[in-house]
C-alpha cells in the first residue's frame, strides 16, 4: 500500500493506493493527524479493495470529524470499494464523490 498526504491549511487530502486490509490499515491510521483539520478527503481511485479493518479507520475519522464540526469525503472509489460501502450501509453515511 502507498499513502500520499497533502495538507492545505485546514484541508487534509490522502491518496491511498493498493489494498486497505488488516495488514495495511494500521499504516493509514498512523498517518492520520486530524488536529485542527476542518475537511479530510480520501482519494480511493487507486484503491483495489477495502476490508472491515479499513472501514474501522474511516468510521473513526468520520466520528471524530463529526464531533469537531468538520467533514470527511471519499473520492472516486472503484466498484469493489463502493460495493463494500453499500453492503455495510456506509454509502448513506459517508460523503462519497464518484
Amino acid at each position: 500500500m502507498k499513502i500520499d498526504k497533502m495538507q492545505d491549511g485546514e484541508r487534509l487530502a490522502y491518496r491511498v493506493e493498493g489494498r486497505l486490509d488488516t495488514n495495511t490499515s494500521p499504516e493509514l491510521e498512523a498517518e492520520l493527524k486530524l488536529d485542527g483539520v476542518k475537511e479530510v478527503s480520501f482519494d480511493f481511485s487507486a484503491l483495489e479493495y477495502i476490508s472491515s479493518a479499513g472501514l474501522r479507520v474511516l468510521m473513526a475519522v468520520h466520528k471524530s470529524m463529526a464531533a469537531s464540526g468538520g467533514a470527511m469525503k471519499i473520492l472516486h472509489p472503484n466498484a469493489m470499494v463502493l460495493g463494500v460501502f453499500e453492503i455495510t450501509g456506509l454509502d448513506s453515511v459517508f460523503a462519497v464523490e464518484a
Partner: protein
Amino acid sequence: MKKGQIVASAAVLYVALMGVTWTIGTRQAAQKTEAMLDYAVGDMRVSLDGVIDTMLEHLASIVVHHFRQADAHSMEEVAAVAEAFDIDEISVVDREGRVIATNDPDSLGVDMLVKDETRPFAELTNGVTQVVSQPFRRHAYGNSRRKYLGVPFPNGDGYVQIGLDESRMDRMISAQLSFLFDPQVGDTLCYLCADEETGKLVSKQLEDDMPQTLAELGFDVSAFPAGGASLLGDGGAGAAKTFVQWLGGRRVFCRSFLFGGHRFIVIEPEDEFYGSRNMIAAAMAVLLALVLGGFAFFLVRISGDSERIRAFYRAADAARAKEMEIAKTIQSSALPAPLEASPYFRLSASMMPARDIGGDFYDFFMLDSTHLAFMVADVSGKGVTAALYMMTAKTLLKDALLAFRDPAEAFSRANAELCRSNTANMFLTAWGGVLDLETGLVTFVNAGHNPPVKVEGAGAEGRTPKYVTKKSGPVLAFMDGVAYRPRTLSMNPGDTLFLYTDGVTEALDHKGELFGEGRLLDAISAVPEPNPKMACNVVRMAVAAFAEGVAQADDQTVLAVEYVARPLRFVRSFPPTQEGIASASAFLDECFGGVPDAAREGARELGSRLSPLAPALHVVLDEICSNIVKHSGASGFEVDVELVAEPAGVKLTFADDGAPYDPLSHKDPDTALPALERPIGGLGIMMVRKMTDSMDYERVHDRNYLTVVKRGEVFSK
C-alpha cells in the same frame, strides 16, 4: 269360476312356481359353485406351476452359469453340481440336440430330437427362446413323476436341461405356502394343503387343539381321489370331481388335486351360493303373495351372486397387481437421490422396470469429497422376492463400499454376507467402481456383469466407444469365499463410462432378434458430445425404437458417468499472526496467477479467467483470517483454494484448531442505525456473507472448517 277353483289353481301355480324356482336356483347355484371351484383350482395350479417354474429357472440358470458352455463334462463333475444344488437330473445338450454330459448314465448320447417329449427343448438353440418348461410327467425309468426345464447357454451352442422329481417339490411348496395362500383372496373360499402320505395339514398356522390332519378334519382319506362327481350331474370323462363334506358344522363343496407330494383341497361353503335358493324357498312357503316378490328378490340375489364372483376375480387380480406394485415400490424406493452438481463429474442414470419387475438397481454416492462410487446390478428372478433380495444386496454393497472404499474388498465382504442370507437361491451380477476425481483413475470390480462401454475424448472426433471387458470374479451370492480382484481403468477429462444391464442388450424386437452389443455401441457413438444424460436418453430411445412396442421382458437400466475435469486445488498453512494473514493474501494472489502449481494443466488460464473475483476474495480472506488470528486462539490456520471452471467460481476453505466458532450464528450488525451509534466491528462476517454465494461451517475433530463459494459477479446482492 268358483272361489275354490281359483285358490286351487293358485295353489297349483304356487307349487309349480316353487318347483321351478327350486330347480332353477339349484342349477344356478351348482353352476356358480362349479365355476368358482374351476377357477380356484386353475388359479392354484397356475400359481404352483409359476412358483416351481421360477425356481427351476433359477437353478437351471445357475447350472448354465457354472458350465459356461456346452462341453463334455465328466459324469462326476455333473453329479457334483447336481448334488450341490439338489437337482435330480442334469443334461448338457449340444447344438445338434445330443446329450454330451449328464449325471444319468442312461441319457448320455441320447438324441433329444428323436422323442416327442424331448423335441420341444430343441427350440433353446434358436437364440431367442430363453426357457422351455414341461409339466410333471411319469419318469421313464422310475415310479416318480418328474418335471423338466431347459435354459440355453448364452452363446447359443446348446442348453442345459434339468429334471426334478415331484417329491422334491415339498420343500419348495412349503417355502412358498404363505405366498400361495394369500388370505386376502376370496371371501369364503379357502384352501387346505396336506402332506399326501400322512395327511398332515401344512397350509395354515394351526393351534395345538385344532385338527392336525385331513382325517381329523373329517375327510374320508381313502376316497381320494376317486370320490365325487360334478354338482351339475352331467358326469362323463374329465368331469370335475366335486364332493360334499361337513366341515366345522357347515356343508361345504370340495375339489382335490395332487401336486408335488401334497394334496390340495379347494373348499367352498354350500351356503355361499345355495343360500339364496334356500332362502327363497322358505319365503315362498310362507305366502303365495310373496311368490312374485320372491322372484324379484331371487333375481336380485342372482345378480348379487355374479357380483360376488366378479369380486372374487377382482380380488385375485388385485392380489397379483398388488404384488407387482409392492415390488415396484421396493425397487423405486431403493434408487438414490441425485447427487449435488459437481464441476468434476456428471452422472445420469435411469431404470425402466419391466411389467413383472426384474431385480435391477443402480447406486451412486460420494465416499468423500474426491471419490465417487457408482454401480449397476441385476438380481436374478422377478417380483417381490427379487425386489427384496435386491434391497439386501444394495444395502450390503453400499455399506461395504463406505467401510472399505476398495471395491474388490467391498464386493468380497458383501458376497460372503449375501451367500449367508441367500435362502431363495438368488444371485446377482454387478459392476461397481470408484472414481478418484483427483486422478481420473477408476478402481472397479466386475462380478459377472455385462462389460461397460468407455467413450474417450471430449470432441466429436475420435469418440470411439469400446467395451471394457476385464472381469474380476463370478456373480455375487453364488459362491462363498470368492476374493474379487480390483481392476482399474483410467479416465481423462471428457471421457465417459456407460454401464447398463442385460435388459438393454437383450431387448427383443418383433422378429425375436436381440438389441445386442453392436447396436448399443452404435447408439453410444451417435451421442455427439460427452453428456451422460444425453447418452442415457439416446440409448433408451434406440432400444425403444428397436423393440417397436414389443413388451419389455426385463428391467432396463443405464448409468453414465463423465469425468469432467481434475480439481485445481491449492492448500497452504499459515501461522496465527498478522504476517500469516499477509502471507495468506499473497498465496491467494499466487493461486490466481497459477503459481502454486503452474505445471497443472490449465491452472494459469483458469486463474486469470477467475481473477475478477480476486478483490472480493481478498476481503473475505482478510475478514476470516483476522477473526481466526484475533479470537480463536488457534495454533495456525490452513487456506484451501479451489478454482472451478464450470460453473465458474472459487471455493475457499479455512481450517483452524481454535475455539469453536460458527460465524453463521453471528447476527448482522444493524446497518440502519446512524453510523455514530453503531458499534465499530462485527461488520466483517456480514461482509463475507454478502460478498459470497454460499457459506458453510463445520466443526470436525476439534477443528473449525469454514467454506465459502464465490461465483460470477463480484456483488451478488
